[in-house]
């Protein structure tokens, strides 16, 4: 076939760029118009007042005690257990959400069934509900004398349950719009090239969803490690068993131990940053691979 193919010619239209040009990201030069300058300034001031300054203050306060401060705080077995519990449960719940959230988003976008619109609205309820109420709701079903025979309240399972409840909408809501925008032409193109349904999902759909899944996962994890309200009722805050970091921080503060509270808070800040960065790296990798 190839020998005969040289006959057809066409002008290579379109913008030409350096050969083998892979996208290289360059920092854009300063192109701010006066209006944009004001906007950026406002954004930075707002962000600083609300986020940067308070965070810096916490880190500064924690750091004033030196490394030993961190060491002492984490040395405390009760605190260490709380950190472990919080981080593990948040990771577990985020993982569950990655799978379940994507499935729910898929069902909401791709399938047509009775009650779909209702479900679409209800998805946000766990997010909209005051967290204490969320705890109360769960306590009704999974608490003592559970009507379905699952008495998980005041056990580590209660932490999983509560966190899963409050973080449910994040991945659904980040994946849903992306899935809606996804062109079914592309899937059909893959099918006519011989790709099976699972292959199409893995190689065509998933890479498009990964950025959304990753940002949903980051939100979900961040929300999980900071959860307080729903846990107070459901987990019972039993030291070394169901006590999470936010409760621990509160009790530090109640005992007037501000520097320990600050140290623990900045440890959690570091963990949150770490997870967000890792998710971003994973997302870039997967999205590139295809």
């Amino acid at each position, binding site marked *: 076939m190839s020998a005969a*193919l040289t006959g057809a010619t066409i002008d290579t239209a*379109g913008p030409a760029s350096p050969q083998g*040009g892979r996208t290289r990201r360059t920092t854009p030069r300063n192109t701010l118009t006066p209006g944009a300058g004001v906007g950026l300034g406002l954004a930075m001031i707002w962000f600083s007042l609300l986020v940067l300054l308070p965070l810096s203050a916490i880190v500064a306060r924690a750091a004033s005690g030196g490394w030993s401060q961190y060491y002492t705080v984490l040395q405390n077995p009760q605190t260490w257990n709380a950190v472990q519990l919080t981080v593990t449960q948040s990771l577990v719940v985020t993982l569950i959400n990655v799978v379940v959230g994507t499935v729910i988003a898929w069902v909401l976008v791709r399938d047509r069934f009775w009650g779909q619109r209702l479900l679409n609205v209800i998805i946000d309820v766990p997010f909209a509900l005051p967290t204490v109420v969320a705890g109360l709701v769960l306590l009704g079903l999974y608490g003592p004398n559970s009507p379905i025979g699952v008495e998980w309240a005041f056990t580590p399972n209660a932490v999983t349950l509560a966190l899963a409840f409050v973080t449910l909408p994040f991945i659904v809501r980040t994946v849903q719009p992306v899935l809606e925008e996804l062109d079914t032409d592309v899937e059909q193109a893959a099918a006519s*090239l011989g790709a099976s349904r699972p292959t199409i999902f893995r190689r065509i759909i998933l890479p*498009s969803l990964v950025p959304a899944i990753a940002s949903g996962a980051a939100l979900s994890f961040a929300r999980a490690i900071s959860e307080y309200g729903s846990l107070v009722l459901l987990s019972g805050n039993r030291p070394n068993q169901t006590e999470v970091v936010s409760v621990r921080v509160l009790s530090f503060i109640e005992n007037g131990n501000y520097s320990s509270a600050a140290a623990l808070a900045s440890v959690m800040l570091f963990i949150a940053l770490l997870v967000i960065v890792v998710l971003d790296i994973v997302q870039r990798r997967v999205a590139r691979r295809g």
Partner: protein
Amino acid sequence: MSIEVRGLNKKFGDFVALDDVDVTIPTGQLTALLGPSGGGKSTLLRIIAGLEKGDSGSVNIEGTEATHLPPQKRNVGFVFQHYAVFKHMTVAKNVAFGLEIRKRPKDEIEHRVQELLKLVHLSQFSHRLPSQLSGGQRQRMALARALAVEPTVLLLDEPFGALDAKVRKELRDWLRRLHDDVHVTTVFVTHDQEEAMEVADEIVVINEGRVEQVGTPDQLYDEPANDFVMSFLGEVTHLGGVSLRPHDVEVESSPHHAGSIEGTVSRLVRIGFEVRLTVLTVDGEEVSVVLTRTHARALGLEEGSTVFLTPAAGATVIPRMAVAG
């Protein structure tokens, strides 16, 4: 042989997209499915590809009964109007996709991808992402991707519809030459009669879910089966109960021919070498006429002149139907 469609019906709710369609598309040719938007031509193409299922009827591709085969098993190449590129893959990866699915050896894939990219003149773009290509380039990439799996038939759904006029014309010529070299049975959908006439070996005119006529571009233009085909392939006017092309109306300043129809020039527009007349006949009919500048000058035509009209000798003339536009 090649693609045989028999008794195909397809409804979307109440809307009849295809109404008992029989059509045979010859092997190795470039065939156009031509018709107005919503006429069912894309649906027919998608059913041939297996992307849509007919309600009844059968599809046979190169002797293989394909009616119930999924798209994966039909070995057809499909090119979409909006390119359907795999956004997250480089140009080379896009083209390699079908071969990777078929688990061909790595070096064979690489070789074939290079060959195809050369064919579509995208060799130097192989490491780019589709978002860095122009529309025409993306469509050429999509074509290379479809050709990579050596399809039995290549189906193109309004392949140049999303491109601007200049690129469209370029790609159209290029598709014709490509087909002359590759000879894969190719079917493309278009609503642009000029595109169909220029590129296709054979044209299937489809309107309101039915095949109106099948034939070569010349056959369709010279011997249209009905008023619809005639009016879809070019301008049509009506004179004394027949439909004919405006340039096939003979204009005279005195009644030389028996049966010529008298009228008055109500409007005269000159566009370059061409003069367009609107003639109001004594029967109250408005007839459009096109003639050359030279001819019009020789006749001394101006608005208000009395003229006598007859169908020119050898003109394509068909009896006028009620629905004529």
